[in-house]
C-alpha cells in the first residue's frame, strides 16, 4: 500500500477545507495511506519570490522538518507551492550542509496532486461523474515550472459526462502572482478581468484549475462580474459523483 504525506498549502489551509477533504478521500480511495504532519505552515514562496531569500530559510526549515519525519512522498494541491519546494529549496542552503542534503531529499519526493495521480499511480479514471461543460485554465507554475502540460486534461478526459471546451488564452496568467496583487492591484485586476472575459466567452458552466491561488482570483472575479460560472479546483471536480453532479 503506497504511503504519502499531505501538504495542504497555506491557502488550502485557510480557504479550501472541502478541497483538502476531497483530496484525502480521492487518495484513500486509490489505496494511498495518508499522513498529515500538522507542523507544516507555508512553503515560503511569498517571501522567496519577493526577494527575501534570507527570510525564506527559516520557513523552509520548518517545512522540511515537518515532512522529514517520514520518508513517504509529499503531495500537494498546488503546482506553485510544490514547485517552490522542488525547484528552489536546494538553492536556499549551502551545498554540503545538512540542510542542503535535507532540501535535496525533500525536493526529490514532492509531487503535485495530478502529477502524482497520472505519473506515479498511473491512474487516469478516478470514477468521477460531472455532466457539465468544463473549460480549463492552465496555471503558470503548474504549467511552466512543473511542466505539467497534459496531466489535468488526461484526468478530465476520463470524467463521465464531461464536455471539455478549450479556453482562449488558456496559458495566460490570471493576474494573481502572489504579492503582485497587492503591489500592483490595478494590473492584477485587468489581467483577471481578461481571464474572466475569456471564461465567460467560452460558453462553459464550469472552469477548472489546479491551483488554489488562481482559484481564489478567478472565482472572486467571476462573482464580481455577476457570472454563475462555477470555478473549481480539479480535486473537487474529480471527487464529484452521480448525486452531487
Amino acid at each position, binding site marked *: 500500500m503506497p504511503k504519502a504525506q499531505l501538504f495542504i498549502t497555506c491557502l488550502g489551509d485557510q480557504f479550501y477545507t472541502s478541497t483538502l477533504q476531497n483530496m484525502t*478521500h480521492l487518495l484513500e480511495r486509490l489505496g494511498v495511506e495518508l499522513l498529515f504532519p500538522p507542523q507544516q505552515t507555508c512553503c515560503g514562496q511569498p517571501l522567496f519570490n519577493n*526577494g527575501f531569500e534570507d527570510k525564506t530559510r*527559516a*520557513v523552509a526549515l520548518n517545512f522540511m522538518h515537518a515532512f522529514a519525519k517520514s520518508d513517504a512522498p509529499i503531495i500537494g494541491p498546488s503546482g506553485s507551492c510544490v514547485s517552490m519546494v522542488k525547484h528552489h529549496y536546494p538553492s536556499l542552503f549551502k551545498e554540503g550542509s545538512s540542510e542542503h542534503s535535507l532540501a535535496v531529499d525533500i525536493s526529490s519526493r514532492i509531487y503535485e496532486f495530478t502529477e502524482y495521480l497520472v505519473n506515479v499511480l498511473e491512474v487516469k479514471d478516478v470514477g468521477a461523474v460531472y455532466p457539465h461543460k468544463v473549460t480549463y485554465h492552465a496555471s*503558470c507554475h503548474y504549467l*511552466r515550472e512543473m511542466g505539467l502540460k497534459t496531466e489535468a486534461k488526461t484526468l478530465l478526459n476520463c470524467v463521465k459526462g464531461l464536455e471539455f471546451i478549450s479556453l482562449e488564452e488558456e496559458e495566460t496568467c490570471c493576474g494573481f502572482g502572489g504579492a503582485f496583487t497587492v503591489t500592483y492591484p*490595478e494590473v492584477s485586476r485587468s*489581467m483577471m478581468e481578461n481571464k474572466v472575459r475569456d471564461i465567460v466567452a467560452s460558453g462553459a458552466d464550469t472552469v477548472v484549475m489546479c491551483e488554489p491561488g488562481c482559484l481564489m482570483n478567478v472565482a472572486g472575479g467571476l462573482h464580481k462580474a455577476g457570472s454563475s460560472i462555477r470555478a473549481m479546483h480539479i480535486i473537487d471536480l474529480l471527487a464529484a459523483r452521480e448525486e452531487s453532479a
Partner: protein
Amino acid sequence: MSHEVPNYIGFEEYSEHVPASIPSAVQQATSRFVSGRASRVAELPQWEELRQIGSDIRLHTIENMDVYLTRLEEKVQAAGGHVHWAQTAEEARQIVLQIAREHNVKSVVKSKSMATEEIGLNHALEQAGIEALETDLGEYIIQLAGTGPSHIIVPAVHLKKEEIAALFSEKLHIDAPADPVELTRIAREVLREKFLNAGMGISGGNFLIAETGTLVLVTNEGNGRMCTTMPDLHVAVVGIDKVIPDWESLTVFLKLLARSATGQKLSTYTQFITGPSREQGEFGPKEFHLVLLDNGRSNILKDPVGREVFKCIRCGACANVCPVYKNVGGFAYGWFISGPIGAILSPQMLGTQTARELPYASTLCGACADVCPVKIPIPTILRHLRRRVAQGDEFAEATLPVTIRTTAGLASFALAQNWLYRIGTRILPWVMAIFKRDNWIPYAPYPLSRWTKARPLPPFNAGFRGWWRKVRATSGKESAK
C-alpha cells in the same frame, strides 16, 4: 520620457492611470505577432536546438567580450572605419556631436536604434542646432508625438491608426485620413526630401561581427538602407553587447530574430556594412564611424546572474506574450526599453533605487522565458533583482522601504514558528467573520483591501486540521469516506 534618464520609475503610479486606449491597441498588435511567431516556429523542427545554440553563443561572447571587441575594433579599422569608445551616454553624445561638427552637418536622418534612444541622442542633436529626423515609420510617429518608444520593435504600438491620423493632421498641418497606406505615403513624402539633403546618417546595429568588423542591420522598411547609404557620412551607435564572434553565429541569430520578432522568416532587409565605400563608384558613405557604447554594461557583466540580460537580441517576443506589458503598455516601464526585458535591464543600468519597482512588475508567470529565442532566464533574473532590492547584495544595498522589510520579517517569524501559525489559523476565521457577507468577503482591511478592491475574498474557514484530528481520533484510518 523622451530624452531624459528618469530619476524614479513609478510603475505603480502609472499602472493606476493607464490610458484606456493603450491596452487595446497593444493587445491587438501583439496578438498578431504572437500567432505569426508560433506559425514560423512550428515550421522549424530544430527550433529548440537553435535556441540553445543561440544562448550558448551569446553566453560565450559575454564571457569573452574583451576578446571579441578587440577583434572587432581591429577589423573595422582595417576596413577603413573609425571606432570610438564611449564609457557613458554623455561621452557617446559628445562623440556624435563632434563628428557632426567636424563635417558641418546641419541635418541628420536616423534609422531605428534603441542605443540612441538610450542615450537621448535626438535631444542632444537638436540642442546643438542639428535637425535629427527619425525615418522608421514608427519612430517618425513617436518623434512627432514627442514620446519615447513603447515597444522594442514597434515603437508606436500604443497608437491606433485614428490617433496617428490626428497626430499627422496636427503636426504636418494636413488632413490625414485614418488609413495606414495613406499615412505611410504621407510620411514617405516628408522623409524622401530629408534623405536627399541629410549630411549624416545615424543607425544602431543588430549585430557586430567581430570576424570581419561588419555591422548588421535587420529592418523592414528600407529606410535603414537609405540612412546608411545616401549621406556621405554614417555613424552607428551600438552597445558593446551586440558583438558576436563570426558569420556562422550570425546565421543562427538571423534564423531566431525575425521569427521571434515579427513572425517573418527573414526581415525584408538585412544589411551588412563593413567600413565605408573604398573605391570610386562603390555604393555607400565616404566615412563610417562606429561608436561602441558601454554606459554601465561592463559593470553589469560582472554579475554572473544579471549579465544574461545581454544575451538579448531585441526581438520583443517577451513583451508580446507578457500579460503585464499587454495591460499597461510600454510607458509604464519608464525608460527606452519596456516589457520583461526592460524590467530586468533598467534596474541594472539605472540602479535599484531608480528602478526598484520594475523587478516586481511581473507575476513570474514565465511566458517570457518560454518564448525568448536566446533563453534568457527572465524570471530567475527578476527574482535575483528582487533580492537586490529587498535585502541587498554585493552590487547594491537594499532599497525596499523598511516597513515592507519589517513586515516580511514578521511573516517569516510567524510562518517558521508553526505553533504561532496554527494559533493564527484558528483566530483568522473569527476575526474575518466580521467582514463576511453572503459567504464572501467583499471588503477586507489593508493590505487585503488591495485584493478586495478588485474581487472579493473567499471566507477564511481553516477546517481541515480540526476535521483530520476528529476523523482520525474517532475512526482511525478508516476515515470519512
